């Protein structure tokens, strides 16, 4: 399999804190990869480097033949990196359909003067975009909610709308930041199956941050464990599960969590 994303020696420092520490990481095309680790292990920071929000302090990131470290997020979207967020960040006062149309912004061609003159090419493109958007919404299970303002959607559908919006950007690589957070076991099961469908039906490569071990172990081709910004283990789910370092770092933190709760 070809490598779609490859990070080499990536570090990110905030003042004295090293959030990601000389990380080597690669994603094969058409795989589902997961990154796990205790809170503050640097998972989201790594996502933010891959999607262009942070410029890495050191290291290189290659995506699909491009050197992307430090490029702006909107440019990376054009290269084919789509994402969702740990806390949902939809455009609340825009309808579900409009949210998806924003995802298409960068590949729709209509320039402002054509919008102003309502040229036929623009009208045709808009109609096509709306049709495509409705298709995407139906695909993620939001048929009939096209005109609902996204802030009024129930939580589970908001998560799905975020995925539809990311799909609208036509990604090759889709980064999902805790897609099952806050879901009940049934919803989680649906979401897990849905993620697999995204890969199988749409040929996407998927990179997950996930806390739900069951989800991670069922769908991942490769699991990577981060702790204090470093990679402490990597491999097939079954291998990682038996890695003592992981059990130490991970179960330790989970036990801590249980006490907290």
């Amino acid at each position: 399999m070809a490598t779609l994303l490859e990070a080499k020696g990536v570090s990110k420092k905030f003042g004295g804190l090293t959030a990601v520490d000389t990380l080597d990481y690669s994603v094969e095309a058409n795989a589902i990869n997961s990154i796990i680790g205790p809170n503050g292990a640097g998972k989201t920071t790594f996502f933010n480097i891959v999607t262009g929000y942070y410029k890495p302090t050191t290291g290189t990131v290659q995506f699909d033949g491009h050197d992307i470290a430090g490029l702006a997020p909107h440019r990376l979207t054009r290269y084919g990196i789509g994402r969702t967020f740990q806390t949902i960040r939809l455009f609340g006062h825009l309808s579900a359909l409009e949210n998806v149309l924003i995802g298409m912004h960068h590949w729709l061609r209509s320039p402002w003067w054509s919008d102003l003159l309502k040229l036929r090419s623009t009208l045709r493109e808009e109609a096509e975009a709306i049709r495509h958007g409705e298709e995407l919404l139906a695909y993620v299970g939001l048929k009939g909610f096209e005109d609902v303002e996204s802030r009024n959607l129930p939580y589970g559908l908001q998560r799905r709308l975020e995925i539809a919006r990311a799909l609208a950007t036509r990604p090759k690589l889709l980064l999902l930041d805790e897609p099952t957070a806050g879901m009940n076991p049934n919803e989680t099961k649906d979401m897990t199956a849905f993620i697999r469908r995204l890969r199988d039906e749409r040929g996407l490569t998927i990179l997950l941050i996930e806390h739900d071990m069951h989800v991670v172990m069922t769908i991942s081709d490769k699991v990577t464990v981060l702790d204090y910004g470093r990679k402490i283990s990597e491999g097939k789910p079954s291998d990682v599960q038996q890695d003592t370092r992981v059990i130490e770092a991970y179960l330790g933190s989970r036990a801590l969590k249980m006490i907290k709760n």
Partner: protein
Amino acid sequence: MSALISRWRSIPRWAQLVILAAVVIFVPPVINIVERQTGFGLLTQVNRALIYVSLALGLNIVVGFAGLLDLGYAAFFAIGAYTFGILTWPSLRLDFSFFIAIWVCVLVAALFGMLIGAPTLRLRGDYLAIVTLAFGEIIPPLVRNLDNITIRIGDLVLVESFNLTNGPLGMKPLGRPNFGIVESIAGLSPGQLDPGVNPTFWYFIIVILVLVVLSASRRFEDSRIGRAWRAIREDETAARFMGVNTVRVKLLAFAFGASFSGLAGAVFASMLGAIFPELFRFQVSVFLLIIVILSGAGSVWGVLIGGLLISTFDGVLLAQIMPSIFPNSDVQSLRWVFFGIGLIAVMLFRPQGLFGHLGQRQRASQPVKEAAHGDAA
């Protein structure tokens, strides 16, 4: 109110247009009658209100659509008006025709919009507000002091005592639209269609201005660029991750906001026939912001209706009717108390504005949590 709106929606589009056209055409004669009865100057106030509506629609692109707080919007109004002044003031001998000059004003204002926007649009929202405010505060003193420009490089005098803006005295007279071609075709005597200071003529010219600005706003609203503006208003960071080049999109919002203002400024200058630095103070920026916020930021129809109502409230009720009812009290000096309270109250209790719901498409605004619970793909 909502019954009225739904009835209005139910009539066919051609009938809507006929009704609107009839209203627009019959406003001047009706107002003339009222003016004769009451002695108030109403039509000039309507014209002013319509100019303010055009300006507010421009500001609505920046504040309402894109969510960028511009506290110095009057600067672009001033730039439009003064560009028109420079192009048509007889002493400078450029003598542009009105119909060409206004488009130059649009371009110059848009250029300034991008010039101030390019370095500042990366700033956080509140800093941007202050930068625009400072820019707005620089323009009037700048204009006031550009009446005696001398530029020297060493001993070489490039410009000496050049009077660009006529400083505090203001520029006067300024160019007016000339309908010579129409007159010769229609067989009228030259000058018969000269608008002069006749408010009815100006009314129709300004109605055209409003129509231009209104239809541009409407077309932008639901287009690719308009959606991108609304997306960055909702969540700029998320918009960036979805592939929107936010700096470019914000720059366009600034440019269009400025160009609307430049156009309105040019027409305003021509209508008054004279411009002074004091016409473009901070109060104008705040008054326009009040129109946009009170009417409903982001709602084109809301700003249209609200702009007309608020400007009329200010120019007719507060400035003319109230003083005639209470001749001994100084009601007008309280106008900013009213507007200040109005602004605070709307922000606290009705952030969507008084007329923000007008013209909104039929959207399910009720939460649908129950209906959709457990629904899966």
